[in-house]
């Protein structure tokens, strides 16, 4: 019997070998790399910048956004590498953080655009554990930083007709562009709203300025946005004036009209996207 305690102790110590079934470092480094170029003057209230990669764009929760490490501030350009497991990203950008404020993943100062179309962010897909995608270059406009403000544009969003199948979210965007927006950097987005409502309120946090276009974009599951996503709009030649960081304009109502039969048509040909009527309520 005297052997029993020794045997037990020995057995327990033998159990105490390394267990590698837990969390481990990524075995191979995959991700993407590129150069970030900065235009404009660095704001004095810059705290940090980081690379942000969105699994869905526009993101609905912060779980949709992968934030990279802090990048050096103050230079004209820098080279970066973003490590991630294989993943399909709908957008890649650089997010700016104001001193004393929290991170805001929508405070983007530059997107990756692989083409001249700067209204649709470039998708990046890493398909293998050892894949490192090159040349994901980004140009940041430091004049596009957004400070924390209370100013907002909002209103009612009403739907007429049946929602087309495939519609997942609706996001409302306000543009500072003189005519139509030419870049995502000209747009301010609302929180994405789940499709299926009859009417709902929307609100967009905007910087002081003049906004000529407010547009509702219908997003399909797993799809990014583009000009073709706009399904309802409000256009004003004189523009909605947001005078200061406290100004709120909460009566900018929008209608989304889905004509009868659009759901059926959509069922027949899901590649074309939902058909709907663009509605303009100008002044």
């Amino acid at each position, binding site marked *: *019997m005297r052997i*029993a*305690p020794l045997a*037990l*102790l020995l057995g*327990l*110590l033998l*159990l*105490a*070998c*390394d*267990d*590698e*079934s*837990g*969390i*481990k*470092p*990524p075995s191979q*480094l995959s991700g993407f790399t590129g150069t970030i170029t900065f235009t404009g003057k660095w704001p004095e209230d810059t*705290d*940090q910048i980081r690379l942000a990669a969105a*699994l869905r764009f*526009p*993101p*609905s*929760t*912060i*779980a*949709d*956004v992968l934030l990279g*490490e*802090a990048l050096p501030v103050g230079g004209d350009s820098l080279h970066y590498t973003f*490590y991630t*497991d294989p*993943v399909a990203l709908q957008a890649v950008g650089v997010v700016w*953080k104001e*001193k*004393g*404020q*929290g*991170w*805001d*993943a*929508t*405070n983007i100062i530059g997107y990756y655009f692989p083409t001249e179309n700067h209204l649709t962010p470039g998708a990046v897909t890493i398909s293998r554990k050892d894949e490192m995608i090159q040349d994901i270059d980004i140009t940041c406009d430091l004049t596009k930083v957004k400070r924390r403000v209370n100013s907002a544009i909002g209103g009612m969003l009403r739907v007429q007709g049946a929602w087309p199948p495939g519609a997942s979210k609706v996001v409302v965007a306000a543009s500072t562009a003189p005519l139509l927006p030419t870049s995502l950097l000209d747009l301010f*987005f609302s*929180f*994405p709203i789940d499709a299926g409502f009859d009417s709902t309120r929307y609100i967009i*946090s905007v910087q002081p300025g003049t906004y000529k276009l407010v547009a509702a974009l219908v997003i399909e599951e797993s799809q990014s946005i583009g000009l073709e996503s706009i399904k309802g709009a409000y256009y004003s030649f004189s523009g909605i004036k947001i005078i200061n960081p406290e100004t709120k304009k909460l009566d900018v109502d929008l209608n989304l009209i889905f004509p009868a039969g659009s759901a059926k048509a959509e069922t027949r040909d899901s590649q074309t996207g939902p058909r709907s009527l663009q509605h303009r309520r100008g002044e």
Partner: protein
Amino acid sequence: MRNRLLFWLTAALLLPGAILAHTGRISGRVIDVKSREPIPGANVMIQGTVLGANSDAEGRFSINSLAPGNYELRVSAVGYLVFNRRGIALTADQTVTLDVTLEPTLIESGEVVVTASKRRQSLEDSPTSVGVMTTRELAQKNQVYLDRVLEHASGVNFIGSQINIRGSSGYNYGAGSRVLMLIDGVPVMPGDSGDIKWSMVPASQVDHVEIVKGAGSALYGSSALGGVVNVITKEASANPVTHVRFSAGFYDKPLYAEWRWTDRLLHFDDLDVDHSRRIGKSNVMVALGRHQSTGYAQNGWYQRLNGLFKWQRQLTPKANLTLSSNFETNDNGTGLMWRSQSEALSVAPEAIGDKVKSDKFGFNLFHRWAASSRFALNTRLSYFRNFWKNYFHDNLNASQANRIGLEIQGDYQFSNINALTFGTEESWDIVESGLVGDHTQYVISGYIQNERRLLAGLALTLGARYDLQRVDTGFQDENLSPKVGLVWHARPWLSLRGSSGSGFRAASMSERFSNSVYSGLQLIPNPDLKSETAWSHEAGATLILLPMLSLDISTFRSDYWDLIEPEPTVTQEIQFTNVTRARISGIETGLRLQPGIPGLSLQSAYTWMDPRDLELDQTLAYRPRQISQTTLLYTAGPFEISADYRYISRLDNVKLYPSEDRVAQKTLDLHLTWHYRDWSLSGHINNARNHNHTQMERTLQPIRSYMLTLSGTI
């Protein structure tokens, strides 16, 4: 009006004395039947009365103020069979002296708990499941802080510092707790954050811990949504005695070289000393502890100083007074999340140096007046202060929360089969905070519970509590929390229990008013948060199958409404909202076995749960489906060898980074102890297999560490 008040006050003061002018006393000594050694800490209860006592270091006890009559004495101690003696006849002014011999048993039994019904009762008489971490288990686990001990309790798991009892809490960034923590029956949740500060009372200052499972608001009010943890601190002994505990250790290298963030040896050490003695007519205890660590992860360092003072005095044969006070000063680094999975023990460069300083202070006054053998009045006055200041790279903030509490509780034993517990509780929270602003909150409540034995072995408990909460913004919330419980000792080897109870948790001030940046996350306020509510149902059975085998089985179901959850927005703001309707159902089993090899015992628990978010029809975030704990203990002469293994299944759902790696938690702790007279020397390997896992995203749990502990009595 004034005269009437004077009449009642006079009557209240004089009447019990008049009734009890001639009373008797039962006293004696509790000893081990084999060794004839005294058994300290045995629970001695006079059945059918509100009177009882604990045996002292020499095993002696004395129960006064007993009216002439026939009594039944019940004596129990952990590790011993329960002793019952009926028909003890007592006449006026008589003292009956008894020597009680207890027979050791390998199946732990005989626990007496005070939390489930707010009064002393045998564990097997509780209609709800109660887990007890005994003095012996606390010593065997040999952890510095209680959270590391409680994770060995059945059905319990932690997400960060948040305790989950049967999946109750999930994780909400430390803002509010769905489990109520009490120290010696007094709530110790700061008014601002409403969370549990585990470092406040080191395990060395604790006698035992009781864990009540399921909604307990019918007696305890807010926060007891998922259960109650009551930390019972050590009693002050009349005999001069000093306990010393010193431990030191170091962390192993990380399993992967990439994770190594320093060449330094990462180490920790802890020193705890307490001294008790009798001064005049009072028993006094002073305890001090110093704990420091470099941490196993970058920025994980801490330096803490704890103190506990306890003064106990028998004012009259019927009244005793306990004054206790504790404090903690804490200086610790903080890093919310790792830098990357490639550098899982490092924090982002800008967060290096982030730290929090905090001070906590608690003061409690407890007066018990046993007016007669059938009626006792307990009065608790408490004050708790929590101050913290953070030094983060991206913000500086500070908060001070003060809580004053008053509770008056009556225990009335109508007859041998009918016990009534009732009381009123008030608390004031005064918060001055850079995080939540300056606010006050007032809660007033009343509760009543009746326990009645219906038939032989069958007891019914009915109770309810009403709480009214008022916040200085004008917000008002009220909750009625009923409960019902049934216990049936069907056979000497079989006890059945069933209970239903409701619970609620009022939103903490952090959840309601936070408007700040916390580790890069912007928190925004929601002043109109409603209380979250729950109903818990449980049915269970305890079986003593063989002298060396006991089994406990229970099924449970908790329904939650308006669960307050942090909802991240796309702008990376966090706002607490009433969002979730949820249900958690499951089965829990506990096994205690002495398999036939002398000195060897096994204790095992397994919990299976189905935690559902009914709004989203998916698994609730931060809840595992399976929890299992096993302890193997072998005692051979002065040596004790033990192993603790914990398994917590992979979380199905998390909120922040659901696409990142998550694994099951598998932790093995090994202990070897050598006892020599009043001293013991022990070696410990915590997380012996160096298994790497997280409880919440991007936060690696402690890696393997080695520790030596010397403890003893002078």
